[in-house]
């Protein structure tokens, strides 16, 4: 399956992926309107120490621990292999956060879990990938 992969070598630490993610998942058409004055809760985040930068988002693991741990059945793998979250089912227990080895799960003020769903609802090509200025984030098939 196509996943979001990160080429650390090319990550500039610009953090645009976070903003593009937040915008894309806001459901609002204008980025300014969507993000102006807001604390963003992107599903991808950049980790850096000044020299090294890279973005982290859900790996859509083959055998996702988050799903194993989900106490409400909110997390599931769809037929494409995408680990998706059903916000109606999520109760915000964060067991998935306790289990995700990559720190790829976050929450917002609604206390339900936010995670990368590969922009399946936003047109198919993840916004972080589309907006990455240096192809540090790519959306592709990788040999397993």
């Amino acid at each position, binding site marked *: 399956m196509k*996943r979001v*992969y*990160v*080429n*650390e070598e090319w990550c500039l630490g610009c953090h645009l992926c976070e903003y593009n993610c937040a915008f894309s998942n806001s459901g609002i058409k204008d980025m300014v309107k969507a993000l102006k004055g807001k604390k963003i809760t992107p599903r991808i985040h950049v*980790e*850096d*120490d000044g020299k*090294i930068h*890279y973005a*982290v988002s859900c*790996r859509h*693991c*083959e055998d996702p*621990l988050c799903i*194993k*741990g*989900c*106490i*409400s*059945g909110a997390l599931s793998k769809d037929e494409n292999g995408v680990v998706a979250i059903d916000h*109606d*089912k999520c*109760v*915000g*227990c*964060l*067991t*998935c*956060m*306790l*289990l*995700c*080895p*990559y*720190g790829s*799960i*976050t929450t917002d003020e609604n*206390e339900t879990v936010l995670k990368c769903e590969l922009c399946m609802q936003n047109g198919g090509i993840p916004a972080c990938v589309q907006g990455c200025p240096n192809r540090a984030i790519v959306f592709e098939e*990788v*040999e*397993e």
Partner: protein
Amino acid sequence: MKYVIIGNGPAAVSCVDGIRSVDNEGSITILSKEAHPAYFRPLISYYLEGKSKEENIYCRRADFYQKNHVETVLGEAVAIDKENRIVALNSGENIAYDRLCICSGSSPFVPPMKGLETVEKKFTFLTIDDSFALEQAVDKNSRVLIIGAGLIGLKCAEGLRDRAGKVTVCDLAPRVLSSILDDECAMVVQKHLENCGIAFSLANTADHFNGNTAYMKDGSVIDFDVLVLALGVRPNIGLFKDAGGECDRAIIVGNDMKTSIDDIYAAGDCVEQYDISFGNKRIMALLPNANIGGYTAGVNMAGGKALFDNAVPMNSIGFWGLHIMTAGSYANDGSAQMTEIKDESGIKRFFIKDHKLNGFMIIGDVKSAGIFTNLLRNQTDLSDMDFEALIKSPNLLPFGENYRRKTLRGVV
């Protein structure tokens, strides 16, 4: 091949998944005591709280049993004839198996208490039917007394707060969540719950009851309308024990989820298995373990090969915005070295043994805690890792470029 599963909870349906990942042919029969499809037990408090709708509590889609060719039989198993590989039901029916998995879960533990029989509205809190009953019993004016400040008691308190007039929790232990938190952390949680409107009476419990009045150990009196008994659970192991299987407090299984009896497996809350953090066999009655254990059992039953060899106890619970995550062993008995961070965002405590993370407890800033769980489950050697930096800011930096290339640039 005939597979029989006793019980119909998460471990049971995961067991079905495990079987079907290897064997699409064999027949599967599930014996269920409850007249519901498998549901997520922890959701019963969220149901009360209104966060979970009834239709959303089920573990699988409605067509799961049909799609997987699973026959469900409503009834209670009363005996296992291991020689003839037969399970006897209370209905008198006998069901033959080639492989059996016991996912019988646990039952509420209610010790004998004086005058309990005089209490009109008294409940335990383990099944969805308990939630339905409480839903009926509690109204805006109800005073609810919950006995037990463990996980079940507190979740019940959270579930009922907005439905009831007053919720009081008492426990013989001097702190809340005594099985997973130390005094200091428990106090943080207790304060938070008190701020959220829950009353506590700790190091104290009901000595006896008379109608709607509880007479407490310390001599005080608590009037209530509804009583919830959340004193703990006991694994349902009678059936297996009677068949001559090896049990401690629960059914003993190996990391392949096999019991001491040939062709009988077990998973979920009714088993005891090796806990890598404590270094011995323990009950880890937790949903992730039930899922993993059930699946592992299923694969092995169907002739595949699977191991569940990194079980640790872990908990993630939250009450009104305060999150608590714990994993592994954090008994501060001096065998492990503790590193902690305390600040306005909360408390983080890490226990390191032989350069490996053996347990942790995080209250408050739980972001990316899974990175620690991962270190714990994999018993990663921390000697070459900047662990100090990691606990300040849990991220993948200290793991090094190779690890990141593998995980962020590859399929995991």
